[in-house]
Protein backbone atom coordinates (compact mmCIF):
# COMPACT_ATOMS: atom_id res chain seq x y z
CA UNK A 1 0.00 0.00 0.00
CA UNK A 2 2.84 2.37 0.85
CA UNK A 3 4.56 1.39 -2.37
CA UNK A 4 1.46 2.15 -4.35
CA UNK A 5 1.18 5.60 -2.88
CA UNK A 6 4.79 6.33 -3.62
CA UNK A 7 4.47 5.17 -7.20
CA UNK A 8 1.37 7.23 -7.66
CA UNK A 9 3.12 10.24 -6.22
CA UNK A 10 6.07 9.82 -8.58
CA UNK A 11 3.72 9.52 -11.49
CA UNK A 12 1.87 12.67 -10.52
CA UNK A 13 5.18 14.46 -10.11
CA UNK A 14 6.25 13.34 -13.54
CA UNK A 15 3.04 14.50 -15.16
CA UNK A 16 3.37 17.83 -13.40
CA UNK A 17 6.98 18.15 -14.58
CA UNK A 18 5.90 17.57 -18.17
CA UNK A 19 3.18 20.13 -17.87
CA UNK A 20 5.67 22.54 -16.36
CA UNK A 21 7.99 22.09 -19.34
CA UNK A 22 5.20 23.07 -21.65
CA UNK A 23 4.68 26.23 -19.64
CA UNK A 24 8.43 26.86 -19.57
CA UNK A 25 8.52 26.73 -23.34
CA UNK A 26 5.46 28.85 -23.87
CA UNK A 27 6.69 31.61 -21.55
CA UNK A 28 9.58 32.70 -23.80
CA UNK A 29 7.29 32.45 -26.81
CA UNK A 30 4.81 34.71 -25.09
CA UNK A 31 7.53 37.13 -24.01
CA UNK A 32 9.05 37.33 -27.46
CA UNK A 33 5.73 37.90 -29.16
CA UNK A 34 4.78 40.42 -26.49
CA UNK A 35 7.90 42.49 -27.00
CA UNK A 36 8.01 42.18 -30.75
CA UNK A 37 4.40 43.22 -31.12
CA UNK A 38 4.55 45.81 -28.38
CA UNK A 39 7.73 47.53 -29.47
CA UNK A 40 7.28 46.92 -33.13
CA UNK A 41 3.81 48.32 -33.52
CA UNK A 42 5.01 51.73 -32.32
CA UNK A 43 7.32 52.21 -35.24
CA UNK A 44 4.95 50.71 -37.75
CA UNK A 45 3.59 53.39 -40.03
CA UNK A 46 3.24 54.09 -43.70
CA UNK A 47 6.62 55.78 -43.81
CA UNK A 48 8.24 52.61 -42.54
CA UNK A 49 7.09 50.69 -45.56
CA UNK A 50 7.49 53.32 -48.23
CA UNK A 51 10.53 55.39 -47.33
CA UNK A 52 14.22 54.79 -47.61
CA UNK A 53 16.55 54.94 -44.62
CA UNK A 54 17.53 58.40 -43.48
CA UNK A 55 21.16 59.27 -42.93
CA UNK A 56 22.72 58.28 -39.63
CA UNK A 57 21.26 60.14 -36.68
CA UNK A 58 18.28 61.61 -38.48
CA UNK A 59 14.96 60.29 -37.21
CA UNK A 60 12.39 58.82 -39.51
CA UNK A 61 12.84 57.01 -42.72
CA UNK A 62 11.83 53.48 -43.52
CA UNK A 63 12.92 50.13 -44.83
CA UNK A 64 11.55 50.16 -48.34
CA UNK A 65 14.85 49.10 -49.84
CA UNK A 66 15.07 46.25 -47.37
CA UNK A 67 11.60 44.95 -48.19
CA UNK A 68 12.29 45.07 -51.90
CA UNK A 69 15.65 43.47 -51.29
CA UNK A 70 14.20 40.56 -49.36
CA UNK A 71 11.60 40.11 -52.08
CA UNK A 72 14.29 39.97 -54.73
CA UNK A 73 16.54 37.64 -52.73
CA UNK A 74 13.77 35.20 -51.93
CA UNK A 75 12.58 35.37 -55.52
CA UNK A 76 16.05 34.50 -56.79
CA UNK A 77 16.39 31.73 -54.26
CA UNK A 78 13.02 30.24 -55.22
CA UNK A 79 13.87 30.39 -58.90
CA UNK A 80 16.98 28.34 -58.26
CA UNK A 81 15.70 26.04 -55.58
CA UNK A 82 12.19 25.06 -56.64
CA UNK A 83 13.07 23.28 -59.89
CA UNK A 84 16.14 21.64 -58.35
CA UNK A 85 14.32 20.65 -55.19
CA UNK A 86 11.17 19.33 -56.87
CA UNK A 87 13.02 17.36 -59.52
CA UNK A 88 15.41 15.75 -57.08
CA UNK A 89 12.43 15.00 -54.85
CA UNK A 90 10.78 13.29 -57.82
CA UNK A 91 13.90 11.21 -58.34
CA UNK A 92 14.00 10.17 -54.69
CA UNK A 93 10.40 8.99 -54.82
CA UNK A 94 10.34 7.41 -58.27
CA UNK A 95 13.61 5.53 -57.93
CA UNK A 96 13.46 5.11 -54.19
CA UNK A 97 15.54 1.97 -53.87
CA UNK A 98 18.55 3.10 -55.84
CA UNK A 99 21.86 4.11 -54.34
CA UNK A 100 21.58 7.57 -55.82
CA UNK A 101 18.24 8.08 -54.07
CA UNK A 102 19.70 7.03 -50.74
CA UNK A 103 22.72 9.25 -51.28
CA UNK A 104 20.51 12.17 -52.24
CA UNK A 105 18.35 11.70 -49.17
CA UNK A 106 21.44 11.68 -46.99
CA UNK A 107 22.87 14.71 -48.76
CA UNK A 108 19.61 16.63 -48.41
CA UNK A 109 19.41 15.91 -44.70
CA UNK A 110 23.05 16.87 -44.30
CA UNK A 111 22.51 20.10 -46.17
CA UNK A 112 19.61 20.85 -43.85
CA UNK A 113 21.93 20.57 -40.89
CA UNK A 114 24.75 22.72 -42.26
CA UNK A 115 24.89 26.01 -40.34
CA UNK A 116 23.64 28.84 -42.49
CA UNK A 117 26.83 30.81 -41.96
CA UNK A 118 28.82 28.00 -43.56
CA UNK A 119 26.56 28.12 -46.60
CA UNK A 120 27.24 31.83 -46.66
CA UNK A 121 30.97 31.15 -46.81
CA UNK A 122 30.42 28.73 -49.68
CA UNK A 123 28.37 31.25 -51.62
CA UNK A 124 31.04 33.85 -50.90
CA UNK A 125 33.70 31.59 -52.34
CA UNK A 126 31.94 30.84 -55.58
CA UNK A 127 29.86 33.94 -56.21
CA UNK A 128 31.53 36.87 -54.49
CA UNK A 129 35.25 36.20 -54.67
CA UNK A 130 35.50 35.58 -58.43
CA UNK A 131 33.69 38.84 -59.19
CA UNK A 132 35.22 40.76 -56.33
CA UNK A 133 31.94 42.13 -55.20
CA UNK A 134 28.94 41.44 -53.07
CA UNK A 135 25.76 40.93 -55.03
CA UNK A 136 22.12 40.05 -54.75
CA UNK A 137 22.83 37.03 -56.90
CA UNK A 138 25.28 35.67 -54.35
CA UNK A 139 22.76 36.21 -51.58
CA UNK A 140 20.06 34.52 -53.62
CA UNK A 141 22.38 31.62 -54.24
CA UNK A 142 23.07 31.17 -50.53
CA UNK A 143 19.38 31.23 -49.69
CA UNK A 144 18.58 28.95 -52.61
CA UNK A 145 21.04 26.35 -51.40
CA UNK A 146 19.25 26.38 -48.08
CA UNK A 147 15.85 25.92 -49.70
CA UNK A 148 16.78 22.95 -51.90
CA UNK A 149 16.90 20.21 -49.25
CA UNK A 150 13.65 21.31 -47.59
CA UNK A 151 11.77 21.32 -50.88
CA UNK A 152 13.36 18.06 -52.02
CA UNK A 153 12.38 16.15 -48.91
CA UNK A 154 8.84 17.48 -48.68
CA UNK A 155 8.33 16.79 -52.39
CA UNK A 156 9.55 13.23 -51.91
CA UNK A 157 7.30 12.72 -48.91
CA UNK A 158 4.23 14.10 -50.70
CA UNK A 159 4.82 12.07 -53.84
CA UNK A 160 5.15 8.87 -51.85
CA UNK A 161 1.70 9.54 -50.39
CA UNK A 162 0.06 9.36 -53.81
CA UNK A 163 -1.42 5.85 -54.17
CA UNK A 164 0.52 3.60 -56.52
CA UNK A 165 -2.77 2.79 -58.23
CA UNK A 166 -2.68 6.24 -59.86
CA UNK A 167 0.61 5.49 -61.57
CA UNK A 168 -0.65 2.08 -62.70
CA UNK A 169 -3.80 3.63 -64.11
CA UNK A 170 -1.79 6.13 -66.11
CA UNK A 171 0.70 3.54 -67.37
CA UNK A 172 -2.13 1.21 -68.42
CA UNK A 173 -3.47 3.98 -70.64
CA UNK A 174 -0.21 4.13 -72.53
CA UNK A 175 1.54 6.89 -70.61
CA UNK A 176 5.31 6.85 -70.41
CA UNK A 177 6.75 7.03 -66.94
CA UNK A 178 7.61 10.70 -67.34
CA UNK A 179 4.09 11.50 -68.53
CA UNK A 180 2.53 9.57 -65.67
CA UNK A 181 4.69 11.43 -63.15
CA UNK A 182 4.14 14.92 -64.51
CA UNK A 183 0.50 14.69 -65.55
CA UNK A 184 -0.95 12.56 -62.76
CA UNK A 185 1.30 12.02 -59.77
CA UNK A 186 2.80 15.48 -59.34
CA UNK A 187 -0.57 17.24 -59.82
CA UNK A 188 -2.06 14.92 -57.22
CA UNK A 189 0.68 15.85 -54.74
CA UNK A 190 0.78 19.52 -55.70
CA UNK A 191 -0.85 21.03 -52.61
CA UNK A 192 1.71 19.34 -50.39
CA UNK A 193 4.59 20.31 -52.63
CA UNK A 194 3.49 23.92 -52.64
CA UNK A 195 3.20 23.85 -48.85
CA UNK A 196 6.76 22.62 -48.63
CA UNK A 197 7.90 25.46 -50.84
CA UNK A 198 6.01 27.99 -48.71
CA UNK A 199 7.59 26.67 -45.53
CA UNK A 200 11.02 26.77 -47.12
CA UNK A 201 10.38 30.33 -48.19
CA UNK A 202 9.36 31.32 -44.68
CA UNK A 203 12.51 29.81 -43.30
CA UNK A 204 14.93 31.60 -45.61
CA UNK A 205 13.13 34.93 -45.50
CA UNK A 206 14.22 35.10 -41.87
CA UNK A 207 17.87 34.23 -42.48
CA UNK A 208 20.58 36.73 -41.74
CA UNK A 209 23.95 35.01 -41.42
CA UNK A 210 24.35 33.82 -45.01
CA UNK A 211 23.60 37.30 -46.31
CA UNK A 212 26.20 39.10 -44.20
CA UNK A 213 28.91 38.58 -46.76
CA UNK A 214 27.04 37.71 -49.92
CA UNK A 215 24.38 40.29 -50.52
CA UNK A 216 25.87 42.42 -47.76
CA UNK A 217 23.75 45.54 -47.39
CA UNK A 218 22.85 48.65 -49.29
CA UNK A 219 21.74 51.97 -47.85
CA UNK A 220 20.19 52.93 -51.11
CA UNK A 221 17.40 51.55 -53.19
CA UNK A 222 18.70 49.00 -55.63
CA UNK A 223 17.33 46.28 -57.82
CA UNK A 224 20.59 45.57 -59.58
CA UNK A 225 21.30 41.90 -59.14
CA UNK A 226 25.03 42.34 -59.43
CA UNK A 227 25.21 44.91 -56.66
CA UNK A 228 24.88 44.49 -52.93
CA UNK A 229 21.30 44.68 -51.81
CA UNK A 230 19.53 45.40 -48.59
CA UNK A 231 17.37 42.88 -46.78
CA UNK A 232 15.00 43.07 -43.84
CA UNK A 233 17.04 40.69 -41.72
CA UNK A 234 20.42 42.34 -42.25
CA UNK A 235 18.86 45.76 -41.79
CA UNK A 236 17.29 44.69 -38.50
CA UNK A 237 20.68 43.41 -37.40
CA UNK A 238 22.43 46.64 -38.35
CA UNK A 239 19.84 48.75 -36.58
CA UNK A 240 19.76 46.52 -33.51
CA UNK A 241 23.44 46.85 -32.75
CA UNK A 242 23.48 50.56 -33.46
CA UNK A 243 23.30 53.16 -30.70
CA UNK A 244 20.43 55.13 -32.22
CA UNK A 245 17.06 54.90 -30.49
CA UNK A 246 15.10 55.54 -33.67
CA UNK A 247 16.91 52.82 -35.55
CA UNK A 248 16.32 50.39 -32.71
CA UNK A 249 12.61 51.04 -32.85
CA UNK A 250 12.66 50.38 -36.55
CA UNK A 251 14.49 47.14 -35.81
CA UNK A 252 11.55 46.02 -33.68
CA UNK A 253 9.17 46.96 -36.46
CA UNK A 254 11.20 44.95 -38.93
CA UNK A 255 11.16 42.01 -36.54
CA UNK A 256 7.38 42.32 -36.27
CA UNK A 257 7.04 42.14 -40.04
CA UNK A 258 9.28 39.06 -40.15
CA UNK A 259 7.36 37.27 -37.42
CA UNK A 260 4.02 38.14 -39.02
CA UNK A 261 5.20 36.74 -42.33
CA UNK A 262 6.43 33.54 -40.72
CA UNK A 263 3.19 33.19 -38.77
CA UNK A 264 1.11 33.66 -41.91
CA UNK A 265 3.10 30.99 -43.76
CA UNK A 266 2.80 28.54 -40.86
CA UNK A 267 -0.94 29.00 -40.65
CA UNK A 268 -1.30 28.61 -44.40
CA UNK A 269 0.81 25.46 -44.37
CA UNK A 270 -1.26 23.95 -41.56
CA UNK A 271 -4.53 24.69 -43.33
CA UNK A 272 -3.35 23.11 -46.56
CA UNK A 273 -1.92 20.07 -44.76
CA UNK A 274 -5.19 19.55 -42.91
CA UNK A 275 -7.09 19.68 -46.20
CA UNK A 276 -4.74 17.19 -47.77
CA UNK A 277 -5.16 14.77 -44.89
CA UNK A 278 -8.92 15.03 -45.19
CA UNK A 279 -8.66 14.39 -48.92
CA UNK A 280 -6.71 11.19 -48.61
CA UNK A 281 -8.88 9.86 -45.80
Amino acid at each position, binding site marked *: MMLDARRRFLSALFVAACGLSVVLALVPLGLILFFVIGSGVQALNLEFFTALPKPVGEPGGGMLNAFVGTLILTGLASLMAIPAGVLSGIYMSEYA*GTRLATATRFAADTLNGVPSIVIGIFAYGIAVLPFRQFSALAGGLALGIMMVPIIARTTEEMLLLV*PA*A*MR*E*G*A*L*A*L*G*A*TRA*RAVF*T*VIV*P*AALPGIVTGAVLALARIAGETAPLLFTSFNNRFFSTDLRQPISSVTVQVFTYAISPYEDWRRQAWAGALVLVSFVLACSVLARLVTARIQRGWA
Partner: protein
Amino acid sequence: MMTATTSVPVPTARSGSVPHEPVGRARIDVRGLSFFYGVTRALDDITLQLYPNVVTAFIGPSGCGKSTFLRTLNRMNDIIPGARVQGTVLLDGEDIYRAGVDVVALRRRVGMVFQKSNPFPKSIFENVAYGLRINRMAGSRSELAGRVEDSLKQAALWDEVKDRLQDSALALSGGQQQRLCIARALAIQPDVLLMDEPASALDPIATQRIEELVYALKQTYTVIIVTHNMQQAARVSDFTAFFWLGRLVEYDRTDRIFTAPAEKLTEDYVTGRFG
Protein backbone atom coordinates in the same frame (compact mmCIF):
# COMPACT_ATOMS: atom_id res chain seq x y z
CA MET B 1 1.00 -29.60 -66.39
CA MET B 2 -2.40 -29.34 -68.01
CA THR B 3 -2.59 -27.18 -71.03
CA ALA B 4 -5.52 -25.99 -73.08
CA THR B 5 -6.83 -28.02 -75.99
CA THR B 6 -5.34 -26.74 -79.17
CA SER B 7 -8.45 -27.17 -81.25
CA VAL B 8 -10.56 -24.09 -81.78
CA PRO B 9 -13.83 -24.48 -79.97
CA VAL B 10 -16.81 -22.81 -81.54
CA PRO B 11 -18.65 -20.58 -79.05
CA THR B 12 -22.32 -21.33 -78.99
CA ALA B 13 -24.69 -18.43 -78.80
CA ARG B 14 -26.25 -17.85 -75.37
CA SER B 15 -29.99 -17.42 -75.21
CA GLY B 16 -31.06 -13.90 -76.01
CA SER B 17 -27.67 -12.81 -77.31
CA VAL B 18 -26.78 -11.83 -80.84
CA PRO B 19 -25.27 -14.87 -82.55
CA HIS B 20 -21.83 -14.28 -84.03
CA GLU B 21 -19.99 -16.21 -86.64
CA PRO B 22 -17.36 -18.78 -85.75
CA VAL B 23 -14.06 -17.34 -84.69
CA GLY B 24 -10.99 -18.04 -86.72
CA ARG B 25 -7.65 -16.52 -85.81
CA ALA B 26 -6.98 -16.03 -82.08
CA ARG B 27 -6.42 -12.45 -81.01
CA ILE B 28 -3.97 -13.34 -78.24
CA ASP B 29 -1.93 -16.49 -78.47
CA VAL B 30 0.04 -17.50 -75.38
CA ARG B 31 2.64 -20.23 -75.69
CA GLY B 32 4.63 -21.76 -72.86
CA LEU B 33 4.49 -18.65 -70.71
CA SER B 34 6.31 -18.72 -67.39
CA PHE B 35 6.77 -15.69 -65.18
CA PHE B 36 9.24 -15.08 -62.38
CA TYR B 37 9.77 -12.41 -59.73
CA GLY B 38 13.41 -12.86 -58.90
CA VAL B 39 13.64 -16.57 -58.03
CA THR B 40 9.93 -17.09 -57.41
CA ARG B 41 8.06 -18.76 -60.25
CA ALA B 42 4.60 -17.23 -60.37
CA LEU B 43 3.32 -18.69 -63.64
CA ASP B 44 4.20 -22.12 -65.00
CA ASP B 45 4.20 -22.95 -68.71
CA ILE B 46 0.83 -21.52 -69.74
CA THR B 47 -0.50 -22.07 -73.23
CA LEU B 48 -3.88 -20.88 -74.44
CA GLN B 49 -5.59 -18.72 -77.04
CA LEU B 50 -7.90 -15.82 -76.30
CA TYR B 51 -10.58 -15.12 -78.90
CA PRO B 52 -11.98 -11.79 -80.09
CA ASN B 53 -15.51 -10.73 -79.37
CA VAL B 54 -15.99 -13.11 -76.51
CA VAL B 55 -15.68 -12.74 -72.77
CA THR B 56 -13.07 -15.02 -71.25
CA ALA B 57 -12.97 -15.44 -67.50
CA PHE B 58 -9.93 -16.40 -65.44
CA ILE B 59 -10.93 -18.13 -62.22
CA GLY B 60 -9.10 -19.79 -59.39
CA PRO B 61 -8.37 -19.43 -55.67
CA SER B 62 -6.41 -16.45 -54.34
CA GLY B 63 -2.77 -16.52 -55.24
CA CYS B 64 -3.28 -18.89 -58.17
CA GLY B 65 -1.72 -16.41 -60.59
CA LYS B 66 -4.76 -15.33 -62.57
CA SER B 67 -4.14 -11.64 -61.97
CA THR B 68 -0.44 -12.04 -62.61
CA PHE B 69 -1.23 -13.75 -65.90
CA LEU B 70 -3.65 -11.00 -66.84
CA ARG B 71 -0.96 -8.42 -66.27
CA THR B 72 1.50 -10.21 -68.52
CA LEU B 73 -0.84 -9.54 -71.39
CA ASN B 74 -0.22 -5.78 -71.32
CA ARG B 75 3.21 -5.99 -69.75
CA MET B 76 2.10 -4.26 -66.58
CA ASN B 77 4.34 -6.69 -64.73
CA ASP B 78 7.32 -4.89 -66.20
CA ILE B 79 7.19 -2.39 -63.37
CA ILE B 80 7.88 -5.10 -60.79
CA PRO B 81 11.59 -5.28 -60.04
CA GLY B 82 13.11 -8.63 -60.93
CA ALA B 83 10.30 -9.56 -63.32
CA ARG B 84 11.24 -12.15 -65.91
CA VAL B 85 9.20 -13.76 -68.66
CA GLN B 86 9.78 -16.98 -70.56
CA GLY B 87 7.70 -18.07 -73.55
CA THR B 88 5.76 -15.95 -75.99
CA VAL B 89 2.64 -13.87 -76.01
CA LEU B 90 1.46 -13.11 -79.53
CA LEU B 91 -0.92 -10.25 -80.15
CA ASP B 92 -2.26 -10.76 -83.67
CA GLY B 93 0.79 -12.83 -84.47
CA GLU B 94 3.45 -10.54 -83.00
CA ASP B 95 5.36 -11.34 -79.83
CA ILE B 96 4.82 -8.53 -77.35
CA TYR B 97 7.90 -9.51 -75.37
CA ARG B 98 10.23 -9.23 -78.31
CA ALA B 99 13.10 -6.81 -77.80
CA GLY B 100 12.33 -3.34 -79.09
CA VAL B 101 8.57 -3.58 -78.67
CA ASP B 102 6.96 -0.23 -77.84
CA VAL B 103 5.26 -0.97 -74.55
CA VAL B 104 3.42 2.33 -74.61
CA ALA B 105 1.77 1.44 -77.92
CA LEU B 106 1.00 -2.05 -76.63
CA ARG B 107 -0.90 -0.62 -73.69
CA ARG B 108 -2.99 1.44 -76.05
CA ARG B 109 -4.14 -1.70 -77.76
CA VAL B 110 -4.53 -3.76 -74.62
CA GLY B 111 -6.38 -1.72 -72.04
CA MET B 112 -6.85 -2.47 -68.37
CA VAL B 113 -9.40 -1.84 -65.64
CA PHE B 114 -8.23 -2.44 -62.09
CA GLN B 115 -9.80 -4.11 -59.10
CA LYS B 116 -10.03 -0.97 -57.06
CA SER B 117 -11.14 1.94 -59.19
CA ASN B 118 -8.36 4.49 -59.52
CA PRO B 119 -9.74 7.63 -61.13
CA PHE B 120 -7.30 10.50 -61.28
CA PRO B 121 -7.92 13.48 -58.99
CA LYS B 122 -9.19 15.43 -61.95
CA SER B 123 -12.61 16.15 -63.41
CA ILE B 124 -14.78 13.43 -64.92
CA PHE B 125 -14.14 14.84 -68.36
CA GLU B 126 -10.38 15.04 -67.84
CA ASN B 127 -10.23 11.46 -66.64
CA VAL B 128 -11.76 10.12 -69.81
CA ALA B 129 -9.84 12.58 -71.96
CA TYR B 130 -6.50 11.68 -70.40
CA GLY B 131 -5.76 8.70 -72.63
CA LEU B 132 -6.95 10.60 -75.68
CA ARG B 133 -4.70 13.52 -74.92
CA ILE B 134 -1.50 11.63 -74.24
CA ASN B 135 -1.98 9.41 -77.26
CA ARG B 136 -2.97 12.39 -79.38
CA MET B 137 -6.11 10.76 -80.56
CA ALA B 138 -8.35 13.79 -80.90
CA GLY B 139 -7.76 16.68 -83.23
CA SER B 140 -10.04 19.39 -82.04
CA ARG B 141 -11.78 20.27 -78.82
CA SER B 142 -15.11 19.15 -80.27
CA GLU B 143 -13.67 15.84 -81.43
CA LEU B 144 -12.30 15.28 -77.94
CA ALA B 145 -15.66 16.05 -76.38
CA GLY B 146 -17.33 13.73 -78.84
CA ARG B 147 -15.07 10.82 -78.02
CA VAL B 148 -15.44 11.41 -74.29
CA GLU B 149 -19.21 11.32 -74.69
CA ASP B 150 -18.97 8.09 -76.72
CA SER B 151 -16.86 6.36 -74.11
CA LEU B 152 -19.09 7.42 -71.28
CA LYS B 153 -22.08 6.09 -73.20
CA GLN B 154 -20.35 2.78 -73.84
CA ALA B 155 -19.65 2.54 -70.13
CA ALA B 156 -23.30 3.28 -69.36
CA LEU B 157 -22.33 6.33 -67.33
CA TRP B 158 -23.20 9.18 -69.67
CA ASP B 159 -26.73 9.85 -68.44
CA GLU B 160 -25.58 10.10 -64.85
CA VAL B 161 -22.73 12.54 -65.43
CA LYS B 162 -23.54 14.48 -68.57
CA ASP B 163 -24.49 17.56 -66.58
CA ARG B 164 -21.45 17.53 -64.35
CA LEU B 165 -18.50 16.63 -66.48
CA GLN B 166 -16.35 19.24 -64.75
CA ASP B 167 -16.96 17.86 -61.29
CA SER B 168 -14.22 15.94 -59.57
CA ALA B 169 -14.19 12.26 -60.39
CA LEU B 170 -13.58 11.51 -56.73
CA ALA B 171 -17.08 12.72 -55.90
CA LEU B 172 -18.68 9.77 -57.72
CA SER B 173 -19.83 6.61 -55.97
CA GLY B 174 -17.70 3.46 -56.05
CA GLY B 175 -19.68 1.90 -58.84
CA GLN B 176 -19.68 5.09 -60.87
CA GLN B 177 -15.95 5.48 -60.41
CA GLN B 178 -15.40 2.00 -61.74
CA ARG B 179 -17.56 2.69 -64.78
CA LEU B 180 -15.58 5.89 -65.24
CA CYS B 181 -12.37 3.86 -65.26
CA ILE B 182 -13.92 1.59 -67.86
CA ALA B 183 -14.89 4.61 -69.95
CA ARG B 184 -11.36 5.94 -69.55
CA ALA B 185 -9.94 2.66 -70.81
CA LEU B 186 -12.42 2.45 -73.70
CA ALA B 187 -11.74 6.00 -74.85
CA ILE B 188 -8.46 5.02 -76.48
CA GLN B 189 -10.21 2.27 -78.43
CA PRO B 190 -8.24 -0.75 -77.36
CA ASP B 191 -8.58 -4.06 -79.13
CA VAL B 192 -8.50 -6.01 -75.90
CA LEU B 193 -9.90 -5.05 -72.51
CA LEU B 194 -8.38 -6.68 -69.45
CA MET B 195 -10.47 -6.42 -66.31
CA ASP B 196 -8.97 -7.42 -62.98
CA GLU B 197 -11.87 -8.26 -60.64
CA PRO B 198 -13.70 -5.11 -61.70
CA ALA B 199 -16.69 -5.60 -59.44
CA SER B 200 -15.09 -7.11 -56.33
CA ALA B 201 -15.16 -3.85 -54.42
CA LEU B 202 -18.75 -2.99 -55.35
CA ASP B 203 -22.19 -3.62 -53.92
CA PRO B 204 -24.55 -6.12 -55.67
CA ILE B 205 -26.47 -3.52 -57.66
CA ALA B 206 -23.32 -1.86 -58.94
CA THR B 207 -21.89 -5.30 -59.64
CA GLN B 208 -24.87 -6.20 -61.77
CA ARG B 209 -24.45 -3.07 -63.85
CA ILE B 210 -20.77 -3.86 -64.42
CA GLU B 211 -21.66 -7.39 -65.48
CA GLU B 212 -24.25 -6.10 -67.96
CA LEU B 213 -21.64 -3.75 -69.26
CA VAL B 214 -19.07 -6.51 -69.69
CA TYR B 215 -21.57 -8.58 -71.62
CA ALA B 216 -22.37 -5.64 -73.91
CA LEU B 217 -18.73 -4.77 -74.50
CA LYS B 218 -17.87 -8.06 -76.10
CA GLN B 219 -19.67 -6.92 -79.25
CA THR B 220 -16.76 -4.63 -79.93
CA TYR B 221 -13.82 -5.85 -77.88
CA THR B 222 -12.04 -8.94 -76.67
CA VAL B 223 -12.79 -8.95 -72.98
CA ILE B 224 -10.79 -10.89 -70.42
CA ILE B 225 -12.03 -10.76 -66.89
CA VAL B 226 -10.42 -12.08 -63.73
CA THR B 227 -12.89 -12.97 -61.05
CA HIS B 228 -12.95 -14.88 -57.79
CA ASN B 229 -16.72 -15.09 -58.03
CA MET B 230 -17.60 -18.26 -59.90
CA GLN B 231 -21.22 -17.34 -60.36
CA GLN B 232 -20.10 -14.15 -62.01
CA ALA B 233 -17.85 -16.11 -64.36
CA ALA B 234 -20.73 -18.42 -65.20
CA ARG B 235 -23.09 -15.50 -65.84
CA VAL B 236 -20.90 -13.32 -67.89
CA SER B 237 -18.28 -15.31 -69.80
CA ASP B 238 -18.21 -17.49 -72.88
CA PHE B 239 -14.90 -19.16 -72.07
CA THR B 240 -13.34 -19.89 -68.73
CA ALA B 241 -9.77 -20.69 -67.74
CA PHE B 242 -9.15 -22.24 -64.35
CA PHE B 243 -5.78 -21.55 -62.71
CA TRP B 244 -4.21 -23.19 -59.71
CA LEU B 245 -0.80 -22.48 -58.15
CA GLY B 246 0.44 -20.64 -61.24
CA ARG B 247 -0.65 -23.34 -63.68
CA LEU B 248 -3.47 -23.44 -66.17
CA VAL B 249 -5.53 -26.44 -65.16
CA GLU B 250 -8.38 -26.31 -67.63
CA TYR B 251 -9.66 -24.00 -70.36
CA ASP B 252 -12.94 -24.53 -72.14
CA ARG B 253 -16.36 -23.10 -72.89
CA THR B 254 -17.91 -21.80 -69.73
CA ASP B 255 -20.91 -24.11 -69.75
CA ARG B 256 -18.63 -27.14 -69.98
CA ILE B 257 -16.34 -25.92 -67.20
CA PHE B 258 -19.22 -25.48 -64.85
CA THR B 259 -21.30 -28.53 -65.77
CA ALA B 260 -18.86 -31.15 -66.98
CA PRO B 261 -15.26 -30.22 -66.29
CA ALA B 262 -12.59 -32.57 -67.55
CA GLU B 263 -10.27 -32.21 -64.55
CA LYS B 264 -11.07 -33.31 -61.03
CA LEU B 265 -9.37 -30.21 -59.63
CA THR B 266 -11.66 -28.01 -61.68
CA GLU B 267 -14.69 -29.92 -60.52
CA ASP B 268 -13.61 -29.62 -56.89
CA TYR B 269 -13.16 -25.88 -57.27
CA VAL B 270 -16.39 -25.08 -59.09
CA THR B 271 -18.42 -27.18 -56.72
CA GLY B 272 -16.91 -25.35 -53.83
CA ARG B 273 -14.94 -28.16 -52.30
CA PHE B 274 -12.06 -25.76 -51.82
CA GLY B 275 -11.94 -21.97 -52.12
